[in-house]
Every structure is written in C-alpha cells, then in structure tokens.
C-alpha cells in the first residue's frame, strides 16, 4: 500500500514497506539528498528532519509513522524566517568544514530555537549533543546558534 507523504509542502505517494526508515524514502525515493545517513541508530543526528516542527532522526523513523505529519527537510528549512536566519548565522560564523553533518546540525539548531529562542550554553548542549561532527565544528556551532538567537525577529 503506498504511503502519502507531505514533504516540504509537496505531496508524494511512495510505494514502500511501512517499516522502511523515512531517511531512505526522502533520499532515494523522493530524491532529496540533503538529509544524510551517518549511523542508522539515531546516535549521530545527520539524518535529522522535522515532523510538524519536531526534530526526529529519520534513520529510525518508519515511513508509516511519518505519513501523518508535515515533513520538513534541510532543502526547505530556509523558506521560513528562522531557518534562513540559522543558515545565515552558520555562514557568517564559518561553521562548516566537510559539511556532511551540517544539514542535521542546522535542523537540530532550528528545532531548538523554535522552542527556546534564547538558549543557554546548557540548553545548546542538551539539544546539540545529539549531533556528531567529526570535523570538530562544535565551538562554531555554539557561536552560530547564539548569533542566530541574538537576531530573533
């Protein structure tokens, strides 16, 4: 039975098993490759997407669970003011190196700022500890989140 998905405001019908992780449906079936695969066990955060605004790890989210939500991926994050603000801060702080984890980092940061517009260092740690970066961009991620926070519209 095909699943009806709403991804970045568009409707898709995907004919896959219900237990297939959303990650692979978004990447390989729908073709939005900005969401990354890092660990497959929800330990690295590279695959983070938003389900109706909440950050989730798409690598362990079955597609059948996602069918009832508005799914947002990194490709559409910048359509909203907050997402664009986070992306801009990321560039200004020169956070990015290899960039592979950054889709997930930015999705997590946006989910944090959406609910907590003035996060403390501790708040940032509590949310961003779920996202691994092997290039070591952590100090700049922290700065960029604070910069984005300081520009709250």
């Amino acid at each position: 039975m095909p699943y009806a998905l709403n991804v970045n405001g568009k409707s898709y019908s995907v004919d896959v098993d219900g237990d297939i992780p959303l990650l692979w449906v978004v990447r390989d079936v729908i073709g939005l490759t900005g969401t990354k695969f890092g660990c497959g066990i929800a330990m690295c955060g590279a695959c983070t997407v938003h389900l109706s605004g909440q950050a989730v790890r798409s690598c362990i989210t079955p597609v059948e669970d996602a069918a009832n939500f508005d799914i947002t991926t990194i490709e559409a994050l910048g359509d909203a003011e907050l997402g664009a603000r986070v992306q801009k801060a990321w560039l200004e702080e020169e956070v990015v190196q290899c960039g592979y984890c950054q889709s997930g980092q930015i999705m997590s940061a946006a989910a944090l700022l959406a609910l907590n517009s003035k996060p403390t260092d501790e708040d940032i740690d509590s949310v961003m500890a779920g996202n691994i970066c092997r290039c070591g961009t952590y100090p700049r991620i922290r700065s960029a989140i604070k910069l984005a926070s300081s520009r709250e519209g």
Partner: protein
Amino acid sequence: MNVRLLKVLVLAVASLGVGLATFSLGSSGIADTSQGTPDPARRLKSVSEFQSIADAGTRSRALFVEAAKVITDPRCINCHPMNRQPTQGDSMHPHVPLMNAGGGAGPGIGPDGLMCSACHRAENSPAIPGSRVGSVPGNAHWSLAPVSMGWQKQTLGYICRQLKDPTRNGNRSLTQIHRHTIEDHLVGWAWHPGEGRRPAPGTQEEFSALIGAWIETGAECPS
C-alpha cells in the same frame, strides 16, 4: 503481541546468521551484550510460591522483594534516575548522547528541540544488523519518570515507600498502582524491549500478580 512486534522478532531471528550473530556478541564496551530471548534463569516466582510464608507481613515483604527484581531491572530503572538523566544498557551507563529529559514533577520528554521521540519512536526499531545496540527502543509513551519516582541507587524500602506515597507516586491509590502494572504500555515494554536488550525477569502478568498479592497482604515494605 502486535503485528509490528512480530515483524521485529522475525527480523531478529533472521539476523542470527552465523557470522553476524557471532559478531554482535562482543563483550567489551558500553553496549548491551544481552539478546532478546528470555533467560530461563531470570524467572519470577509465582504468588503461590509465597503461600508457605505464614506471617502476612513477612509474606508481603517477600512478595515485594520478588517484584522488585523487575523494578530494579535496567529495563525499568534506567528511566527512573534520581536526576533528569536516564541511563542505558545493563551496565546503566549515562545515556549517550547527553539527555536532560526535563519534566521535573511530571514525566520528562526531553529538552525543547530534542524530545525523546526524536529517537524513541512509537515502537522499537527493527533489528539493525551488526550493531551491538541491536535496535533503538521505542514506545508511544517513552519518557523519563518524574523526579519523585527516582529509584536508582535507592534501597528497596525506599522504593517501596515511594510507590505507596500518593505525594510521590502520581497521586495513585494502591489499586491504581496495580492496574498500572497490568495495563501500562510503557511498563509492558520492559518485557518486549527489542533486539539487543534482555527483557525484565518473568512476565508482565507474573509481575502484576506479585504486586497484586503484595497489596492484598498489606503492601508491607522491606526496611
């Protein structure tokens, strides 16, 4: 057992191909090393096995001690810490990644921006081949117990008195506590924890029966 859980078990069995199975049984590191199959040595005594204890109070305490095998099992107590940080695995190491579940007086569902449900979905994930995590556990009500229900590193007497204390048990009567052990979906998860995790001892029915008998015998607490 629902259909999804069945699928999980099928996959779990399927993944026990010789090479991969040998491989996921490593013993070092922080991951769970247990498997999903029940361990006969980890049974719970039935209520009838306590009938020979004549003194009701003594019997009641003995029933609680038996039921506490479940309460203090990592499958349960990992999410009943004294702070807001859950532990993981049979070694009960701090949750990785860092998790400040928040909630305080109520159940902790994760900080703003990273709810428990970001990773812990409505059901256990399918088995992950080669991973010593085995699967990512999930339940529709996945959350950290409120502060008042912290059990880790506490005596059985402390845990017992907490359970009975409406100011610390979510304002539940003993009957409600009993029903909770029978019906609660998250409590039931302890016996269906997904690939890579050892279930709590016995069965949920046996556990509930012990709690019921404990209440009937006066809900006495060990010291």
